[in-house]
Each structure stands twice: as structure tokens, then as C-alpha cells.
């Protein structure tokens, strides 16, 4: 496993909006920054509609026609993906960055055999000839625990867990360096969920993959992720290593989120809930996006949105434009002080 100290993928100030039919655009993503390192796993967590999937699609430039990236950079191994032409971008997809979509049933073409679909990417990028590609497909299927003989079946003949594993096999087909997993375990029961997570982990150790896992399951994050990015209303609320965020949450949202998660070690504790609902992305509050629901708000929160700042000096932020985001960050006025602004 290579653990370089330069990030493989580094997302900076990424902003994306969706144009409504009429009325204001929905600012689905604003000023999102995080880093992904080879051989490590980043968890993107947050409520539904907070921009987790949009972040992945923006990085891969797969947004639907109504969405557009308004600002920011996505550096992959030194190249800004957002400045590439569509044709150049296509070379990065699947070969460098692959994605496991939410809901494997829908992401598999119902009228194509599974092995054919896994092979598709390999042949599309002309990585291997047909015969070698077939052998690779068999290997991949065995790797994810599907007998290679079942490759020539159609997706509807697979069980839910098998489909999810087939999707993972498909994502690994071109030996990508970054794997995006969009809620890879959401539709699965606990047993299969554990299997899939186990599989992702073992593949990561074997291939040195960087994984970005989108989920709203905090348990999954704690289990498999090295660092975590907590998102709220299209912005990063807090980010840091799992240890930092789970044991020392700094943003009020993260604090409440963790309190609303049952803990096996503490008995008969009342689970907290956060009152209110996430903001509509087309009618965002002028200040902090969490302000209307926040238990610790101050008057300033209503007027100005807090920036994401590094906590606990020594500063990890560097003077150049792309500081490494390896420390603990939070976007809250209450944490503003002598900390270094990004």
C-alpha cells in the first residue's frame, strides 16, 4: 500500500448548481474541498440532498444537462480535470476513476449479459484484446466472489448482492486508481452489506486503491474510512480523520449527527434528533446554512456564512493555493479564532 503524502485527487472550492425550469438555480454544491490519497478511504456523509452524489458526478463531469460547475478545481495527479475537453475527459473515466452507482439493478443494462458489461470498459479503452479481456472478466468475477460461469447471465438472474458485487467487478475492470462508491451498501441487508464492505477493503489493500465512499451510514464510515467529510446543504461542515471527527466533533451539525446515532457502549440513552429540515437548495439562508436548525447559533450566523478553517494549530494549510487537507477542519463561527483560514 502506498501512502504518499501528496493527494491523488484533490478537490478545491468546487461549486455546482442546477438550473431550475424557472426561478433561482439550486446551489447544490458550494466551496467543497477535500483530498483523496492512494490506498485510503474517504467517507462523504450527510443527509439526503446535501450534495454527496453531486460531488461525485461533478468530479467525473457526469452531471445531467441542467447541472453545471461554476467554480473550483479538481486535480487528479496534477491535472485539472475541469479544464480538459470532453474527449480528453473520457480517457480518465473508468481507466483512472471508476464509480459504483447507487442501486446496482438500475446501473446494469437489463438486456446485456453481465460479463459483456464488465468487458465493455476494457474494450472501450482498448486495454486488452477480446480474448484477454474475457480472461480478465473471469478473474474479476472470481475476485468479487461470483463463479465466472455465471458471467453469461443477465442482471435479472443475479441476486441483489451479486449485482452489487458485479458492479464492483465492473468498476475494477480497467484498474482505476480512484474508486467512487455511491452508497454501495444501502439497498443490501446487513450480512451482504458486511460482505461488500469486506470486499472493498480487501481489494483496496490488494490494489492500493483510493476509495471515496458516499453514505449516510455513520457506522459504515467508522468501519472502513480513514477520513471523513461531513456535508450539510451543499457545503463541507467538517472534515478530518475519523478519529478527530467522531471523538472530537467541532461543528454543531456533526455533534448532533453523532448524538443521533446509537452507541452500544452507553446504555438506555435517548437518541437526539435535529429539529427542522435541510434547507431548499434554491432558497438558501443568507448566513450559515445550518443556522435555522442550530442549537448554538449566534447573531453573526444569520448574516455571514462561516468559512472552512483548520483547527488545532500547527497549521496544515500552506500559503500556496492548494493546501493539503489532512488536518481537522470545520466551518463554524464558534470555532473561528486564531485558527488559520483556508
Amino acid at each position, binding site marked *: 500500500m502506498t501512502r504518499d503524502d501528496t493527494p491523488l485527487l484533490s478537490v478545491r472550492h468546487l461549486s455546482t448548481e442546477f438550473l431550475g425550469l424557472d426561478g433561482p438555480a439550486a446551489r447544490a454544491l458550494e466551496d467543497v474541498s477535500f483530498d483523496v490519497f492512494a490506498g485510503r478511504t474517504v467517507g462523504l456523509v450527510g443527509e439526503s440532498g446535501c450534495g454527496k452524489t453531486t460531488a461525485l458526478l461533478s468530479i467525473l463531469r457526469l452531471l445531467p444537462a441542467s447541472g453545471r460547475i461554476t467554480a473550483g478545481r479538481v486535480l487528479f495527479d496534477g491535472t485539472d480535470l475541469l479544464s480538459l475537453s470532453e474527449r480528453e475527459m473520457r480517457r480518465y473515466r473508468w481507466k483512472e476513476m471508476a464509480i459504483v*452507482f447507487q442501486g446496482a439493478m438500475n446501473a446494469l443494462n437489463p438486456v446485456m449479459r453481465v460479463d459483456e458489461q464488465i468487458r465493455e470498459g476494457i474494450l*472501450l479503452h482498448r486495454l486488452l484484446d477480446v480474448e484477454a479481456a474475457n480472461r480478465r472478466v473471469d478473474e474479476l468475477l472470481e475476485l468479487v466472489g461470483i463463479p465466472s460461469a455465471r458471467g453469461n447471465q443477465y442482471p435479472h438472474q443475479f441476486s441483489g448482492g451479486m449485482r452489487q458485487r458485479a458492479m464492483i467487478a465492473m468498476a475494477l475492470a480497467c484498474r482505476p486508481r480512484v474508486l467512487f462508491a455511491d452508497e454501495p451498501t444501502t439497498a443490501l441487508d446487513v450480512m451482504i452489506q458486511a460482505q461488500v464492505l469486506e470486499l472493498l477493503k480487501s481489494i483496496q489493500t490488494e490494489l492500493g486503491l483510493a476509495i471515496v465512499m458516499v453514505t449516510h451510514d455513520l457506522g459504515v464510515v467508522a468501519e472502513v474510512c480513514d477520513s471523513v467529510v461531513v456535508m450539510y446543504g451543499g457545503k463541507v461542515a467538517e472534515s478530518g480523520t475519523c478519529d478527530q471527527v467522531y471523538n472530537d466533533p467541532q461543528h454543531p451539525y456533526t455533534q448532533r449527527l453523532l448524538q443521533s446515532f446509537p452507541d452500544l457502549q452507553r446504555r438506555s440513552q435517548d437518541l437526539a434528533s435535529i429539529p427542522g429540515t435541510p434547507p431548499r437548495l434554491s432558497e438558501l439562508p443568507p448566513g450559515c446554512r445550518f443556522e435555522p436548525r442550530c442549537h448554538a447559533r449566534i447573531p453573526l450566523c444569520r448574516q455571514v456564512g462561516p468559512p472552512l478553517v483548520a483547527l488545532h494549530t500547527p497549521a496544515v494549510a500552506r500559503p500556496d493555493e492548494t493546501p493539503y487537507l489532512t488536518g481537522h477542519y470545520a466551518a463554524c463561527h464558534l470555532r473561528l479564532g486564531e485558527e488559520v483560514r483556508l
Partner: protein
Amino acid sequence: MKRNLVEFWRVFRGNGMGILGAILVASILVVAILGPAMTPYEPSQIVRDADGRALIFAPPSVHPPLGTDDASRDVFTQLVHGARISLAVGFLAGFIAMFIGSLFGILAGYFGGWVDTLLMRATDVLLVIPDLPLMLILVATLRQMDLHVSPLAVLTLVIGLLYWTSTARLIRSQVLTIKERQFVARARAIGAGHWHIIRKHILPQIMPLIVANTVLILSTAILVESGLAFLGLGDPTQPSWGTMLNFAFDRNAVSNGAWWFYLPPGLAIVWVTLGCVLLGNVLEEILNPRLAMHHLEGEQHMVARREESRAEGKGCADHDSG
């Protein structure tokens, strides 16, 4: 693919209407192919009796099987030769229409935006102009222009270039639903270009629709060709069924009571159109994934059916006791 065909045949065999349509179409195809071998005469050959006199409007009883026309030509020979012309024009025009319609439908549905607007407005314009007068004017004008192409080619092109509108709309709507499916997004994530996505993911899904629609368009094309030829826009040197009808009415076959001259081509047109419509409808029923979801929701279907039959049984019992 082979298994699909076997599966298809299993379902198709059980459908009486489909089988009937297939037989009707196949029989006419056989006639069109074997036509000249089925009759000793040439279409323009004058039939004479034993004394060497030309047989004018001879009824089938005098000259079997279908008598002669006003110019003493064998009607049966004209009919089997006409099958070739009618089917050739109908099929060619049908395929042209199908090709343009599918292409426009796929492009408009897949790319959307200004491509969609442009193609669909063009379709709308063609849709609102009445077909028949437009075609009459086009064919008549083109034939007067001394283009040195056969009148049949003009007819084929005009029909083919005007009858793609409904197909384009149908295909477009289907492509619109398919392109939003997640496996298309996945194909984009793989790094596939538009051409690859259309060929590997969109086309296989709409192919059944195209096949079923082609058969239906064929029948329309044959019917339209007959109509235009009946109005005198066919090629008199290569008579189709429509041209035969045109001759029959021009030469007073009706007032002469020569039913054997005008009924056979009319019935032949009905025969092949009916065959195509039956076949097309059944193909659509079997191949259209929206009408036959069997492989996607097999279990639910079975459960629903069982409950249905139970409910029916209960209904019967209630009825009996009442």
C-alpha cells in the same frame, strides 16, 4: 441471441393472430418471388382463343383462372407480376421511412436541445400537411421534370420521404425514457462516447419497437402506393395492383360486369395489408418491453395471477350460492 429467438418463437407460436398474419405475408412473398414461374403468359401478351380471336373481358369460366381484361391480357399473370411491383415499392418505401424515422427519433431523443427542436419541428410541419394532396403534387411535378428516373423510383422515394413522421415521434419518446436510465449514465462513466452509447445501449432497447413498427409502416406504404397508382401515378409499363385497379376503372370493367378484373387486385391489397397489421400488432405486443414485462417481474406476475384466479373462484362460488 439464439436463445432469445427460441424464446420469441415459443411465445409467437401460441398467438393465432400473429401466425395468421405471418402466413398472409409469407404467401404473398412466395407469389411475388415465384410469380413469373406460376403462369405461362407474359403480362402484356394477348390471349387468343382456338380461332385466333383475342379474348376481350373473358370471364374466368372461359379463360381460367381469372379471365382476361379489355386488352385480352391474362388477369392472373398481371396479378402475380403486380405483386412484385407492389411489394417492391411498398417494402423499399417502408424501409426508407423506417430508417429516416428511426434516425431522426434517436438523434432528437438522445441529443435533445436544438437538435430535438429542429428535427421535431420538421416532423410537425410534415405531419400537418395532408399526405395525399402533397404526394399527388410531388409525384406529378417530379414526373414532369424529365429526371430520367423510373416513375416507380419517384413513387418509392416520395412515399419513403413522407411517411417517417409517426415513427420518428414514437422512437423519440422511447429514447427519451431510455437515456435517463442509470445504465446510460454508467456507460458515460465508463468513458463511452455518444456513438457507443447509442449503438450498444439505446439501439438494442428500441430495436423491438423498430421491428414492429417497420411491419406496420410496410402495410401503409403498400396501401399508399396502391392509392397513388389507382389515381394514375403508377408506371403503366410495370403495373402494380393499384395500376391494375386504375386500368379496370378507366376501361369500364365495372359497367361491363368484369368483376374478375377489379376484385382480385383489391383483395390482394387487403390480403397483404391485413397480414402486415396482424403481424405488426403481435410483434409489438411480444417485443415491446412495456407491454410484456415478464422477465422483470416474473414472481409478482405469478402471485398476482394466483390471487386473481382465487378471486375469480370466490366470485363463482358466491354466484352459485346466490
